[in-house]
């Protein structure tokens, strides 16, 4: 594995290797609970919490965990923090908890978290792991916010409950339905694809120009 700087550990997950948009991890929550910005933020924060705590624990205990049972142990650790997050959310913000429902428990099976443990926390020192977890967590939060924002603004005409376009706005109900989740992520991925293509085209153009100049 290529060595990375601490700064890279942190920034990588935020955008360049965004867990949702570029690694296609954690799709289930990114699609299921992003119908409002509020839900998206709550989910993002809960996931962030679990990721951060699990990374902390895993990277600090990595020398005690035999290789054979590492996955089981990671899952156990993650599940513990998920349960904690679940209980705390239910006690503190019961309304949001009701909206998110079983999807909080499903943070356990968010491949992004297990993936970070296996790929990073179990191999790197605590500080680096926390940087990585923070970066990835922020990346996930950003993705959730983008999804939630797009869907809530179009689907209800509001952002975090604030009306944006006045009372006679015609909401695009489809956006807050399941189909809207797929379509929104699809639009974003198409945007990424378009950007990628343009970059490739530009690079090609540049090399063509250079080729012409040198020849």
């Amino acid at each position, binding site marked *: 594995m290529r060595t990375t700087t601490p700064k890279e550990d942190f920034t990588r997950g935020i955008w360049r290797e965004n867990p949702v948009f570029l690694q*296609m991890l954690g*799709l*289930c929550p990114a*699609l*299921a609970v992003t119908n409002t910005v509020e839900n998206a933020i709550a989910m993002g924060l809960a996931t962030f919490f679990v990721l951060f705590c699990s990374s902390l624990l895993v990277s600090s205990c990595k020398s005690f965990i035999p290789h054979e049972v590492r996955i*089981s142990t990671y*899952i*156990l650790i993650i*599940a*513990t923090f*998920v*349960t904690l997050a*679940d*209980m705390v959310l239910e006690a503190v913000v019961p309304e949001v908890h009701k909206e998110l*429902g*079983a999807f909080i*428990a*499903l943070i*356990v*099976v*968010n*491949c992004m978290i*297990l993936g970070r443990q296996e790929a990073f926390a179990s191999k790197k020192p605590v500080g680096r792991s926390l940087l990585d977890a923070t970066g990835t967590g922020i990346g996930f939060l950003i993705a959730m916010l983008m999804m939630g924002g797009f869907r809530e603004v179009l689907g209800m005409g509001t952002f975090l409950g604030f009306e944006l376009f006045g009372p006679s706005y015609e909401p695009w109900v*489809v956006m807050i*339905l*399941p*189909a*809207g*989740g*797929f*379509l929104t*992520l*699809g639009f974003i*991925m*198409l945007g*990424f*694809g*378009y950007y*990628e*293509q343009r970059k490739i085209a530009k690079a090609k153009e540049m090399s063509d120009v250079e080729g012409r100049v040198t020849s």
Partner: protein
Amino acid sequence: MSDQSLFTIFLSAAVINNFTLAMFLGLCPFMGVSARVETAVRMGMANIFVLLITSICAWGLNTFVLEQAPFLRVISFIIVIASLVQIVEMAIKKLSPTLFRQLGIYLPLITTNCAILGLAMFQTSRNYDFLQGIAFALGAGAGLTLALVLMASIRETSELSDIPAMAKGTGLVLIIAGSLSLAFMGFAGLLSGS
């Protein structure tokens, strides 16, 4: 809430609130394994099998073990399911090496497949009894398989088309999934028609 008939539960999980297209569960195989119809079918079958076991286990754990400690559900479900999938994996490896090779890395992923844990959690929060749980698991499995096979056959066809470069890969799959989800909305209200 557990007044629903078995058929209602089955139909709801299979088409009306399709596990993948409306509840977003089991997306990893949906995006990953759904490039070939044969693999999708087998993956679906493996899922149905694991879902059934999960449902029975979740019901057993809830009724007999976790009566007093509901807060340990997530942990105990995930552990029991993980061990079960391990066993299934070994069994498949032994019984059908071809199948094992084709499903490759996705079999262990069934453990961390939201559909499995999701089934256990939803079944619990809806207070399903044993038979309702079975119906739920079968419905969910049928729904997953249906979505997988549809997606796989559509992708097989689309592979031969001139997909615009920007849509190659995930973009197209998501748009297809969105379209499927739109189409499945036609089943809404199927059980409440007067």
